[in-house]
């Protein structure tokens, strides 16, 4: 890790607001990618990132090793997103109806919808990995670090995720070709 980066994390842990705000600037997008991957809703993902940042600031002193700070942030975001996801599933039917009634963006095509449903069928971790890759174009190594994966595990995850989506979308793809 870059020494200046490390110093920034350390300062943030010790309550340096400016350092923390700098971290928000650099890290909120990957966090958003993770949250979006799990929730597939931009509004909810934004809320989750907001909550995660607030929580991270409050409990920053729990991090003993500054190097682990980004991974720790990601973990908070994943847990928060997971919580929201779980709550959404238990929300009464009437509310969900209202939610779904909400108008989707106009440019939504049939393929888009299929893609989203295929995404929803993937495990949470796979979704988070996919969004990190496609939103932020992060390299495998950084994604592994962020999601706390062991060296080389991401290749399999992304491969399987892509394959699973490919199989689900095969009819649509075929029509496209």
């Amino acid at each position: 890790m870059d020494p200046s980066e490390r110093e920034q994390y350390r300062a943030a842990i010790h309550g340096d607001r400016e350092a923390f705000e700098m971290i928000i600037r650099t890290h909120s997008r990957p966090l958003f990618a993770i949250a979006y991957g799990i929730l597939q809703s931009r509004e909810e993902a934004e809320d989750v990132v907001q909550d995660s940042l607030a929580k991270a600031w409050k409990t920053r002193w729990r991090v003993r090793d500054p190097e682990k700070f980004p991974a720790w942030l990601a973990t908070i975001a994943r847990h928060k997103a997971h919580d929201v996801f779980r709550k959404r599933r238990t929300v009464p039917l009437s509310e969900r109806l209202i939610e779904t009634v909400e108008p989707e963006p106009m440019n939504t095509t049939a393929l888009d919808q299929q893609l989203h449903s295929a995404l929803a069928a993937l495990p949470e971790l796979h979704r988070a990995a996919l969004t990190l890759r496609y939103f932020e174009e992060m390299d495998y190594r950084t994604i592994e670090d962020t999601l706390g994966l062991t060296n080389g595990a991401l290749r399999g995850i992304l491969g399987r995720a892509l394959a699973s989506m490919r199989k689900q979308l095969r009819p649509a793809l075929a029509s496209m070709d």
Partner: protein
Amino acid sequence: MATIHDEIDTWLAADLHGELSDSEQTTLHAHLLDCAACRKTHQETKVMNKILEETLAQEKADPAFEQRMLAGFRSRAAQRSVLVKLLIDLMRLRATQIAAVAAALLGLVQIGRMITGEPVTAPRARERYAESEVATLQPPESRPSQAGALDKSDGIAAGWPQDLALEPPASLVAARSKFGKEGKVSATTAESAKAAQSEAGDVAAYELPENATVGKEAAQSPVESPAPELANRKLIRNATVEVEIVSFDNAVQKITAFANEEHGYVATTDSQKQANGKLKGQIVVKVLPENLDRFLQKIRSLGELKNQTLGTEDVTKAYLDTDARLKNAHVMEQRLIDMLKTKTGKVSDLLQVEKELGRVREEIEKMQGELKYWDSQVQFATVTISLTEKDMEEPAAFLLKERAQLSLYTPDVEKIYNETKSLASAKVQITNAQLNRDYSGRVSAQLSLLIAPEESDAVIGRVKGFGRVENFQMQTQRIAQGGSGMSENAKTKRDKVELNITISREEQEQAFQQTSLRIRTSSADEKAKELRALAEKQGGRVRSSTFSSDPNGREVASVSLRVAMKNYPALMQSLNSLGRVENVSVQRQDRADAQIDESNAPADISIQVYTQGNIVTEESGLFATLRRTLAQSANAIMWSLRMIGVAVAFLAPWAIAIIGVIWMVRRVIRARSKL
């Protein structure tokens, strides 16, 4: 290339994402050339990747996202005041946490101390004490500057006056340092010191105690008289020596020889012979004082030195006094003689003068004698030698003291008591005779005899024959006379034998053997009578007997007997004729210390003669059982009745209340429906 084929998805994804190494890429492309299926998958994956890229790009966070996040963070995590922030940050530090825990522990300890009343200030007080001690030890020169710095209480604690801060006079300091350095002070130094002392009299307290005493001593020393010459002194030297030697006569010879060698002489000899033939004595030797030490050294070689004292008496003053008085007396004498020569005055006066002259002369002679005595004493030193031969303490003779203790049991104590008393003769002395009878009629006697040694065995034998000997002990003691320890030559003499006799009645004697048994028969009472007859035949005595019978027809007769041991087997044999003998238990008391006449020793037998009684007891008979069963069932019925009563009493009010409510409700409904 089965591996690639199987994991084609992974390879393809990594390829699209640019995460394959060059060699991996080559391998993959080679495989794609070979495998049509994988080629198809490759195409599809490429499309998939593209769609994903396109679609998800739309979902990406907008450019203002970071700003929103920052704003949200700022509004949610409000800036705390610097102090609070600092405090919170401090609290989160591990070091602070540890410090807090330590502080809490310390606080607890302090509270514990306060509760137990241990003085909290003790260590501090000790420190202060140490400080004051150091202050006291400080040399005076460095003291004033220190004293100024110290506060008042400290100064007092250290024992220094307040005005110490002032510089003491230079002369005093010089004098003091001189005293401190020199232990002995010559007369001249002392004089100057005296001057210094008077000069600084008001500051005397300032002196350290040791220094002050040294100063005073030094001032006094010149007043003392000068040391006189030793040669003119009249000294009487005495020595006493105690020596243990092997042979007295030999030692005396040697001492005489030693005395001659040292130009002395043996003044007196005196010796005593002890009972054990050993000699003991005292020799007084006079030797020249200057040879005394050498003589004593020689004496030591005689034997074992037990004690030695060396004393010197200074008679110089008394000698000089006497000498002066003697001179005066001589002058007086001369004057009186002159008076008589002139022969003037009355006869009575002359007589007076004559008388006075006589007194003066007597005095002169006395004084001259005294001086002569001293001269002789001074001329020769006196050595008193006490000689004792070795093994002085060896005993002269031994005395054998015999003491016997005899306990007798007899049916008639008084008879034996009188018989023993009649043994008294010239050689048998009765020193104590006592007959005791207590309130319950028990009789015992005690006698003490002193028997001449040659008669003792015969007398003890006779007394033993009077009754049954329960215990006999003989103790012999060898007592050394006229000394202690062992001696091969000493004679042994037998002393009178002391015999203590205790006579008690047989009844009081503890049985030598205790037997208990049960006999089952048809008729207890009858068999008990038979048993008595049997016991009397064997010379036994019935000590107690009881008879009882219970409602079940069981009869029990208990008999306890005492019989001599020699008749015991015969009696036991005959008991079998009475019925079935059961539960025999025998207890024997062997007393190792006592010599027992076994055949005459008493044996106790306690016998229970009993009958079986009814097989079915009154309580377990048919009618009894029936009666009990009926009684129990009647009891149960009564109990359930009672319970029913309780339940009714418990429930009845509720039932009545509920019925009442229902009735009321019905009435109301009916009334409404009518309306």
